[in-house]
């Protein structure tokens, strides 16, 4: 079979140690110019007595050490990365180059607006494009990640209800929701209440109807949902919540499924967050930075965070004078460098290109689901997944004792990053797979062959799965030991 792109270094890694292990007293990499002003020292009472134990290395040590570590890391540039819910698509190189230009990168956040007209115009245009894509009236680009976007949306929800007398204590979330949803709900001062899914994997409409009352501040949903299925009764769901005066929040984790085809605003959502690092291909950075812009309907615009970018006669300005605003959620203006990359992605694709993104994301996901379905059936086989799907290794586990985690580890030895496993929590032996639109048909077929080979191995040579991975710099790691004997620094 055609195999994927294995991580570099198929042999066990050399015990090279940390950068600190390379440290040699007196060795340096830094250089500064001569001090051409009189020396001044901080007063002795404030001075540091002993220098910090940083490493003493030369530039060549830095290069070899961190290049070596990068080669022990798998990214989208290395190979397919079908990590469900994370939208690991190709990150356009042009966005990196543009965002790295001095005109963007060498800008201080507190420069006068008159000297930042280019960046402010870019943010203004991006805000408008995101509003058009989501069907919202205005947006803030300030939240630096999706979870912060959730917090922003929930604080807007709180401010909205407070103006109307307050008293609402609960926010409803589906049982399949990402963990950030309930965590954000509590940090925003609400209680999270679960609404169950029905046999189709969709929100149980009658259960929601029974659940909501005038204590409910709102409902948080993704659509398509965590199973990759479109909530077909979405209009009824939003109507039920609106009927009791609640607001409906769209978690944009799955926006890659519906670009240009339908919009949260038209489904009845009031607040939307977008993960630019998912939908708009800003690099995930090993775990960040992201950006989590939040759009709102007209009635909620006064509550948006400050500063806001406004267009006035004198040009673009950062407006901080908004008395009903929830305030500031980030020290400055959010992850602007990430937003520049999102701008590049959105306007490179344009209206036609974005629509094609979602179509081909759905095509790739459905094609892959179809190819692996004999071994890994969909958790909800009657549903039509969009950009991602949730399959289950339940049958394989019953037959062979091999679990989803073992399949994932075997996928690594077959040269691919595995899917998400054990999420959503409501599906046994869940395998959440999101190939994204930027993988070729051949790669999808290669992935499918690897999934099926893993299933065959589970039946014929299960030790290959239990012992996997064996081609990586390290084998399975003892996570229990890591938590029991905490070693969090050198």
């Amino acid at each position: 079979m055609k195999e994927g792109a294995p991580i570099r270094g198929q042999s066990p890694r050399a015990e090279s140690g940390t950068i600190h292990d390379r440290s040699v007293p007196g060795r340096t990499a830094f250089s500064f110019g001569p001090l051409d002003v009189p020396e001044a020292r901080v007063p002795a009472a404030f001075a540091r007595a002993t220098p910090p134990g940083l490493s003493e290395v030369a530039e060549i040590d830095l290069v070899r050490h961190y290049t070596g570590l990068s080669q022990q890391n798998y990214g989208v540039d290395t190979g397919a990365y079908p990590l469900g819910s994370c939208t690991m698509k190709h990150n356009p190189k042009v966005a990196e180059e543009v965002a790295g230009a001095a005109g963007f990168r060498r800008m201080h956040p507190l420069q006068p607006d008159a000297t930042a007209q280019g960046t402010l115009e870019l943010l203004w245009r991006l805000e408008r494009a995101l509003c058009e894509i989501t069907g919202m009236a205005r947006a803030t680009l300030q939240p630096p990640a999706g979870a912060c976007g959730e917090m922003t949306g929930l604080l807007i929800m709180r401010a909205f209800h407070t103006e109307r007398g307050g008293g609402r204590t609960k926010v409803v979330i589906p049982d399949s929701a990402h963990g950030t949803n309930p965590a954000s709900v509590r940090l925003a001062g609400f209680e999270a209440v679960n609404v169950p899914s029905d046999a189709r994997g969709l929100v149980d409409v009658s259960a929601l109807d029974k659940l909501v009352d005038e204590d409910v501040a709102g409902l948080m949903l993704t659509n398509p949902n965590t199973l990759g299925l479109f909530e077909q009764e979405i209009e009824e769901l939003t109507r039920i919540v609106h009927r009791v005066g609640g607001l409906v929040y769209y978690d944009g984790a799955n926006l890659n499924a519906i670009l240009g085809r339908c919009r949260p605003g038209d489904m009845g959502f009031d607040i939307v967050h977008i993960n630019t690092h998912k939908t708009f291909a800003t690099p995930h950075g090993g775990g960040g930075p992201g950006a989590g812009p939040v759009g709102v309907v007209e009635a909620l615009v006064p509550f948006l965070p400050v500063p806001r970018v406004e267009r006035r006669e004198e040009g673009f300005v950062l407006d901080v004078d908004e008395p009903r605003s929830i305030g500031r959620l980030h020290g400055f203006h959010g992850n602007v460098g990430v937003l520049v990359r999102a701008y590049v992605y959105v306007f490179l694709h344009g209206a036609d290109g974005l629509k094609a993104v979602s179509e081909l994301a759905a095509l790739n996901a459905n094609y892959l689901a179809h190819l692996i379905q004999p071994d890994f059936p969909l958790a909800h086989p009657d549903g039509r997944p969009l950009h991602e799907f949730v399959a289950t290794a339940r049958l394989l586990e019953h037959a062979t004792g091999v679990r989803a985690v073992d399949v994932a580890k075997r996928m690594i030895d077959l040269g691919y990053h595995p899917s998400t496993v054990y999420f959503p929590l409501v599906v046994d032996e869940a395998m959440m797979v999101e190939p994204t639109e930027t993988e070729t048909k051949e790669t999808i077929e290669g992935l499918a062959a690897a999934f099926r080979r893993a299933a065959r191995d589970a039946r014929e040579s299960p030790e290959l799965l239990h012992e996997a991975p064996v081609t990586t710099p390290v084998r399975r790691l003892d996570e229990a030991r890591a938590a029991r004997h905490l070693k969090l620094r050198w």
Partner: protein
Amino acid sequence: MRFAPHTDDDVTEMLGALGLSSLDDLFETVPKTVRLDRPLAIPDGVSEMELVADVRALAAANRHLDQLVCFAGAGAYDHYVPSIVWALAGRAEFATSYTPYQPELSQGVLQVLFEFQSMICELTGLEVSNASLYDGSTALVEAVNMARRGSRSRVLISGGVDPRHIETLRTYGRGAGYEPEVFAVPEGRGGVPDVADDVACVVVQHPNVFGILEPAREVFDAVRDAGAYAIQVFDPLSLGVLAPPGELGADIAVAEGQGLGNHLNYGGPYLGLIAAQMQDVRRMPGRIVGETVDLDGRTGYVLTLQAREQHIRREKANSNICTNQTLMAIAATVYLAWLGPAGLAELGRQCASRAAYAADRLTSVPGVQLAFSAAPFFKEFALRLPMPAVHVRDALLDHGILGGVPLSSAGDDVLLVAVTEKRDRGEIDRYASALGEVLG
């Protein structure tokens, strides 16, 4: 421009395998009533070269800091970013990966984060660091969340803390149910809060928002004696010359980490630093990397103590953070390794010396004085001007100088001036003569 690689034949074959005749069929579950029946009202896609031209025109409409000499700080600083930092941190194997959920495929990011945590501990003199937060302001929010427990819920914060940190804390406090109580700093420093037994924490920034060195040790002693958490907002680049938070008695230390090898980027992406004592590790937010061994006994790294985090604890989690600022933490790690202990000390010496020289030169301009004359400072100081600071700053732009940040919380005539290792004598002298012209 598109990045999806499908040929027409691919699409036909794949649809055929699915028993579908068109891409529209994939979306049959979307109710007709919510379908968008028109194209999005944004322009159709363009080629890469067209897009680059558009964005270059926007960049050209900015006046960036290779065109202006930067004396602006207030939490974001024009420190030098050596080429090595992004040559390594920018490597695609790091940049195009995600949170290391599969540790065997992610030893690179995991080990760098372990090194990052180690370096932050070395810098701060505290026992444990996480793998980064969004920025300095949100790091303070997380520190306050760590400190608040039971009946100890009040949050006291010095008026010497960056006003943007305080604003951010106020925003999040509305959700969590507290209002930060700001205590005054007479003469730009000091201030003694009354720490009752319902106080969770006291926050002091040192060096503070005016650049001034705070008597933090005395305040922290009193705070800890009263049973509250002492939280310090610190400047990581000061710690080659200034005593670290752990030695001053801080329980939790937070900072904006931008200056550690990250570009100014008009405010982000930056990174938040947080460090604390080991006894509080289970209250720490965000990702933490731990060392362990694999099946063959080889050293390796994993995300650990995940039971603290939102994906396990859900509504009981202390923090909702998921995606953080890992790539910025990688840059910070390379930068700190580039500096080493000698580089960090030299950096501090240069900043302190250049700032002292700048303060001397600028206050020699008639009518200009330090806002807080008796107070020691590190790399930043507040000037009191004979006219509104905004006017002065704007007029200095005509001389090619970004002269500082007006600090309206201290008065309309106060300008905060930051001097990093990059500002040489000629630039400082030029600033002084331009200021003389603007005021003259």
